[in-house]
């Protein structure tokens, strides 16, 4: 006898909740909520995270959900996301699917069918939220324009277990922050980026209140937050581990206070025009546990500052130097010799750092796993040769606009870094076939290859890659010499390929599409924009076997017509995004695909 709902009657609530817990996808949980009333109640009780975008009437919906989802611990309200669902309309119960992430590329302002009124969550809504979710631990309010101190005060008063608060872009005032300090004594994580309404007063009261528990703090573009705030942080936030500062109003005084008062600091990100070596020297002495240091633009730091870091922060693992004009090879050498545990290094636009600095990294930092060199014209082949010799654990290499690096350097990487998984090169005009062939020969673990606008790289390189590496991601946009032969070699050699970008390749035609259709059934994403020779025939061959395709960009392809677009849409059940000219989409295709298609509306 079939069990007539025996399991539903015999299984206790806890077990059902355990089953729901293991269904970690939203569609699965939504399905469970519709099974029967008992399941609805249990399912709602066991949801712990909610995300809310700008919608029809957020205050009203907050009331609805707080009634049901009483155990929610995490709420994200991100009003940059607009929800396309239409409220008040009926949904067919089986065919309804929550819409995936949508982007509308609209060149001309025109009203689409899905226009609706958005309004933003208000203080009243926040009050209901606070009352409903008293166990709230994580709250994100991202660019919520209608929220003010009042709303924040009521949330703070109701949600005393709050551990993480993100107020990015909200114009809240000091009273709100003071209330958080007063009431939320377990707060660990606070993000105040672009909270222009806040001043020192609020931050000081916050530090006084919950400074003991605070572990992470982020401040950006807040003109009224000055050294005074940082001094309060230095005095009261002894457990601080992460600090991110982007401000013109902060000077050495503030940083010195933090360096002295927060010895547990592990992560420090600075974009502060007025801070100099003196501050870095203090960090070097005071923060011996520092693991991540990122210094951005217009800094007045010199090699002296980096030397202080190299001397004091022996645990440094991750270093980013971006647009730091005064830093030279000497500073990088000091880091190399002092911080032997460095695993991630990014040098971006530091025009005085050259080959020698990188050579010293290659000689001393044997734990290096990721290296990024962007806009470094002075770095030459010898740098990469040395890195190839010394950094055997390298897994990822990014090179952008490094005109001094050519085939010799890439060969050195290939020979030495056999564990390489990711290689991204953009606009390095000296690199050609020879270097990439070496990669194909030696780097058998490579899964992600991107060669953009390297016009000396041709089919020969891709043949070697196809033979040697089982790629999952390939981007060769703008490498004009690549044609059918190269892509066919990839199609034959990389059956695991899941994303492919061949934009702007003028010599690529339907033959390659046909081979891709046969050789790469796991393909999920393909970008073909500006490929003049690809036609509807190529598309139909591609779609024949690549049934898992989710995304396709094909703008500016004169050979592809409305028929090709229709084939693409009808052939791929999982399609989530098609970028194409509006006039190429027939009414029929529009009806079938609806929300999946993004338009490029240009009068061509």
């Amino acid at each position, binding site marked *: 006898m079939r069990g007539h709902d025996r399991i539903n009657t015999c299984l206790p609530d806890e077990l059902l909740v355990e089953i729901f817990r293991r269904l970690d996808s939203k569609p699965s949980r939504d399905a469970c909520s519709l099974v029967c009333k008992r399941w609805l109640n249990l399912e709602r009780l066991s949801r712990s995270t909610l995300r809310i975008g700008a919608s029809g009437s957020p205050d009203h919906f907050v009331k609805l959900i707080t009634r049901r989802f009483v155990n929610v611990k995490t709420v994200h309200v991100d009003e*940059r996301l607009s929800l396309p669902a239409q409220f008040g309309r009926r949904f067919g119960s089986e065919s309804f699917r929550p819409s995936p992430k949508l982007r509308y590329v609209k060149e001309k302002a025109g009203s689409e069918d899905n226009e609706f009124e958005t309004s933003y969550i208000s203080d009243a809504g926040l009050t209901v939220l606070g009352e409903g979710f008293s166990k709230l631990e994580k709250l994100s309010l991202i660019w919520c324009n209608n929220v003010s101190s009042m709303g924040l005060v009521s949330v703070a008063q109701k949600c005393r277990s709050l551990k993480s608060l993100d107020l990015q872009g909200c114009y809240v005032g000091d009273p709100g922050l003071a209330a958080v300090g007063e009431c939320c004594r377990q707060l660990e994580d606070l993000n105040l980026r672009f909270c222009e309404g806040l001043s020192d007063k609020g931050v000081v009261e916050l530090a006084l209140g919950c400074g003991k528990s605070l572990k992470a703090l982020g401040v950006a573009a807040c003109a009224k937050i000055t050294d005074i705030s940082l001094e309060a942080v230095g005095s009261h936030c002894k457990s601080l581990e992460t600090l991110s500062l982007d401000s013109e109003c902060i000077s050495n005084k503030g940083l010195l206070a933090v360096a002295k008062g927060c010895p547990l600091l592990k992560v420090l990100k600075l974009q502060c025009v007025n801070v100099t070596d003196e501050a870095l020297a203090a960090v070097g002495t005071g923060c011996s546990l520092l693991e991540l240091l990122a210094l951005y633009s217009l800094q007045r730091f010199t090699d002296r500052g980096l030397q202080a870091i190299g001397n004091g922060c022996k645990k440094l693992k991750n270093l980013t130097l971006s647009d730091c004009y005064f830093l030279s090879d000497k500073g990088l050498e000091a880091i190399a010799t002092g911080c032997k545990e460095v695993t991630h290094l990014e040098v971006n636009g530091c025009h005085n750092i050259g080959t020698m600095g990188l050579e010293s990294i290659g000689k001393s930092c044997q734990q290096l796993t990721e290296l990024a060199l962007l806009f470094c014209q002075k770095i030459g082949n010898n740098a990469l040769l040395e890195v190839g010799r010394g950094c055997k654990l390298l897994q990822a290499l990014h090179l952008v606009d490094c005109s001094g690096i050519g085939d010799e350097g890439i060969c050195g990487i290939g020979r030495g870094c056999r564990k390489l998984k990711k290689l991204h090169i953009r606009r390095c005009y000296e690199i050609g076939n020879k270097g990439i062939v070496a990669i194909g020969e030696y780097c058998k673990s490579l899964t992600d290859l991107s060669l953009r606008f390297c016009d000396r790289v041709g089919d020969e390189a891709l043949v070697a890659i196809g033979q040697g590496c089982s790629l999952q991601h390939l981007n060769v946009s703008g490498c004009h010499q690549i044609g059918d032969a190269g892509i066919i070699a990839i199609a034959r050699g990389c059956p695991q390929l899941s994303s492919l970008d061949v934009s702007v390749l003028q010599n690529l035609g339907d033959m390659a599409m046909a081979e891709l259709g046969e050789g790469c059934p796991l393909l999920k994403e393909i970008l073909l924009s500006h490929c003049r020779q690809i036609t509807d025939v190529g598309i139909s061959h591609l779609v024949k076997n690549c049934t898992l395709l989710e995304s396709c960009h094909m703008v500016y392809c004169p050979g592809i017509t409305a028929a090709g677009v229709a084939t693409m849409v009808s052939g791929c059940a999982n399609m989530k995004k098609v970028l194409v000219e509006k006039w190429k989409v027939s009414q029929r295709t529009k009806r079938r695909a609806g929300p999946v298609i993004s338009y490029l509306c240009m009068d061509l």
Partner: protein
Amino acid sequence: MADDGVNTKVEAVSKATTETIELRTEDGGVFDVDKPVAMEFLILKSFYEDEGRVFDKTSIRLPNVKQLELSKVIEYCTRALEFGAKSAAAAGDKDAERMVRQEREGFEAEFVDELSNEMLKELILAVNFLDIKEMLDFLIRSVANRIRNRSVAYVRQFFDIENDFTPQEEDQIHQENAWAFEGVDAD
């Protein structure tokens, strides 16, 4: 020939002779279960501890469990104990640990593959009654795998549940679900 039930002897866990407990199922089956395996059934454990006496050869009746389910439960628990012992022996040796893990995963995959939906549900009820934590966790995971990403109709059918919502109520739930979206990445 005249017997109602089937006498089933179960293999001992270790080579040495172990004490066994006799378990009788609702449909007349009789099982001699090794003590270590039987002690995994927390319902039994508390029974013996409650009685305050040392284990002896009394027969225990399990009114909510049938033969087929009990034999599957014994099979799983026996192997689980074996894997536990192997894991302990391999402690510290990463490769050996990995091998035991893989062997266990292989066994569990095969075990659950052979279960029909009906059997899976019956097992959950039996294991819930017998109070066997580890196996219950395994079965819950397996059920979750079978209903993941399935439609509402499928889930109802799987559990033989009747829909007790009105169409208006269903609509409202759809609205709530759509509006509170999860898993959407911010820019």
